[in-house]
């Protein structure tokens, strides 16, 4: 009985591992937050391999207040550049969620003080 259970667990693990292996591709993404005049400039570059399906969401936060959210999708690589007018004197955080071929990556963020 125990041998059967171990074998079953191994089969399940193998089945789960196969699609992950099949989706393995080098990817990179780089969020950027900068300020120009009265604007916050939010940039995200996502780079996958040929034919990769990319989805990305950028969210700009001022403390715990959500200022703006943008969504875009593309194939192989994706370039987002959005501008939002914001008051100065606060620290802003740009959080990005990236999904490539259905695999969601850990959220990344970059924070800057707008003086």
């Amino acid at each position, binding site marked *: 009985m125990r041998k059967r259970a171990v074998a079953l667990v191994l089969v399940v693990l193998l089945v789960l591992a196969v699609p992950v*292996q099949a*989706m*393995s*591709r*080098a*990817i*990179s*993404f*780089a*969020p*950027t*937050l*900068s300020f120009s005049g009265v604007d916050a*400039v939010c*940039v995200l*570059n996502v*780079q996958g*391999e*040929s034919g990769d399906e990319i989805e990305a969401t950028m969210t700009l936060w001022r403390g715990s207040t959500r200022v703006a959210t943008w969504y875009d999708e593309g194939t*192989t*690589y994706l*370039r987002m*550049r959005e501008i939002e007018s914001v008051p100065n004197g606060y620290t802003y955080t740009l959080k990005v969620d990236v999904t490539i071929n259905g*695999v*969601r*990556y*850990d959220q*990344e*963020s*970059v*924070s*800057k003080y707008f003086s």
Partner: protein
Amino acid sequence: MEQILRQAACEASQILMAGLPTEEQCVYQFSPAFEKKMAKIIRHNKHPLAYRFVTRAASILLALILSGTAWLSVDAEAREKFTSWVRQIRDTHFTYSFSDENVESYEVHNYRPTLLPEDWEEIDSWTDEGGSVVVYMDSVGKVSYFNATQSSKSTFSVGEVKKPVDVQMKIGKAEFFEGITQTDSSVLVWSKNNILFSLTAQLECSELVRIAESVKIVK
């Protein structure tokens, strides 16, 4: 005559002295500032060597701080030793971020690799607030990327690769992330003058290094 004058002066002195109040009658309260100053002088006199040592040590430290600050402000390479890109491990990827967010961003010039595989063709490129990106495509439709990322405003993440291996290039150290399978791209990451460079392509490490070493500012 001189004798008479001396005697008169002596008598006058005694009369004046007699007119002064006695020590017990003189009750004077010194100011706290004066008391503090006197206590400091007494302490200095009790331990003259220790105070001389402390003064000299403070002077040397100040001189070192001032000269170090001046050196760092004019020498970009020295400054890079103290501020640099730091790699962190996430569950799904590796992320590079700059160690000091107060450092002003460095201008990303028009960097380009000058030695490329023959079948690579530049199909897209752009420069934005995050840095510059060049996209290449080879004869079978595989894409490759060259990135130059600015410090302090950006992070740069690499995923779906094996753990990095240190590589020594002619232009400095780099980290090589091998693709998980042979058909996946690998990534070479290095920094220079606080700019983070990366090259992503389906090539061997030695070939990526050869391309990385050819990166120059193109006008």
